[in-house]
């Protein structure tokens, strides 16, 4: 299998604060990789570097073998091939649900309007929100908004989907519907790199789990191994804390 996205020795610092200390990680076609780790471990920063929202301070990130950290590449062109979903949904509040979804296909990818609307309706039907197409985001629940955000990212048929703690801002009862959608998207073969606090979900859906601590990947492997029988003390410590908090 070829790697869709790979990070090679990625270093990122904000001033003196080194957030990523040489990350090596690759995500193969149709693979789902979950990044776990405490707050400040660098999960989000890695995703922001991968989606070119931050420049790296060293190392490389490749998308389909192309070095996207090269300043010569057109960052907009690269971003077109990725879908990003944020923790706080980041839907555009002044646009209807339908317009949120059709915006990028129409404006960025030059898709025909009717075509884009058809596709948006299909996607909305899939997530059971057909009746919300004309609504504005603030009329939707958090779970609905986040599902629309995921669908918005999927509408451009990205090579890889980057999910940054997509359930962290949600009420517990709404987490399920969003994770259900992610599971479905994964099952259809989407390549996904996600940062998550939902260990149970990572266990079920991820093909591989990587544990980040203080900007380094301490260990990675199949979920059963990393989450069930970790090699590193730090991982064990982290997981026992998560279990204490009732999250696994």
């Amino acid at each position, binding site marked *: 299998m070829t790697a869709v996205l790979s990070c090679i020795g990625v*270093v990122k610092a904000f001033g003196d604060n*080194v957030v990523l200390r040489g990350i090596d990680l690759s995500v193969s076609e149709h693979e789902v990789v979950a990044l776990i780790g405490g707050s400040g471990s660098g999960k989000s920063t890695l995703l922001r570097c991968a989606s070119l929202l931050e420049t790296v*301070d060293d190392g490389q990130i490749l998308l389909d073998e192309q070095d996207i950290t090269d300043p010569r590449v057109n960052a907009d062109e690269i971003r077109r091939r990725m879908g990003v979903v944020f923790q706080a949904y980041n839907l555009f509040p002044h646009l209807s649900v339908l317009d949120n979804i059709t915006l990028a296909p129409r404006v960025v990818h030059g898709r025909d309007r009717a075509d884009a609307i058809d596709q948006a309706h299909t996607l909305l039907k899939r997530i059971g929100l057909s009746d919300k197409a004309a609504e504005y985001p603030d009329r939707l629940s958090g779970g609905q908004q986040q599902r629309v955000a995921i669908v918005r990212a999927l509408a451009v048929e990205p090579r890889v989907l980057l999910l940054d703690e997509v359930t962290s801002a949600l009420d517990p009862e709404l987490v399920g519907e969003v994770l259900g959608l992610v599971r479905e998207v994964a099952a259809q073969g989407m390549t996904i790199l996600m940062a998550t606090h939902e260990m149970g979900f990572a266990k079920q859906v991820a093909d591989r789990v990587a544990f980040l601590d203080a900007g380094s990947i301490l260990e990675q492997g199949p979920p059963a191994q990393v989450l069930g029988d970790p090699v590193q003390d730090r991982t064990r410590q982290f997981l026992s804390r998560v279990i204490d908090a009732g999250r696994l």
Partner: protein
Amino acid sequence: MTVGLPGQVGWTPSELELGRRAYRRSRGRRSTLVALISTLAFAALAYFTVTNSPGWPRVQATFFSLEVAKDSFPKILEGLWLNVQVLVVGGFLVLVFGLAIAVLRTLRGPVFAPLRILGTVYVDIFRGVPLIITLYLVGFGFPALGLQGVPTSPFILGTAAIVLTYSAYVAEVFRAGIESVHPSQRAAARSLGLTHRQSMRIVVLPQALRTVTPALLNDFVALQKDVGLISVLGAVDAVRQAQILTGQSFNFTPYVVAGLLFVLLAVPSARLADYVSARARRRQQAGGLL
């Protein structure tokens, strides 16, 4: 791939990173160069167009006479001192009245209805009336009443008129700021037991001020040039001085000198406004490429 990490002693970026930095630097140099060349080309074009126009010698003699400029400079500077005084006193009073009116307009409860209405009417009137008309009405109307104790100095009356107009503008800026503070902040303050006044003073206003500082500085820059309008009341400020000198010499250079002095006065506050809004933006979105 890397030797050590940033911030550590002896860290050196990889060849790859050094290459990227070199490329970014060269791009940076290139855009600086392009900016420099296009600026120079534009300046040269403007210069030759103006100096080659048929009327240029006349214009140069009547508007840009170095000699007249030198002669008029001390008197105009003296006049500008009056403008600065109006600016400082007026600016301070505008802040106080503007804030007071804004707070009046946000008061809830039927008891405060008259105050609220008063605030609204005040803002409607003085934002609507052109400053120059307010200046005439205050500057010539008040002394004409002939009341005992009404000041007749154009400095005081001019300042009063400017304060009346600008307080209305600034009140609206403050009010926008107060309303931009999320209601949850007020809810949190009130649920801690703070009174309306306390939550306003300790929780809402400090946050509101932070949001509106760039807008306030913008209004301050506008005020800096509008203080020149007190000349219509006969106050001998920079503009009036320039007018007198122009009348004496039939040369418009004093106006240019006064204009340049006003620009010099405005530049520091304009840069301060830029700096403050840039800092606010940085604080809002720490880091990031977009």
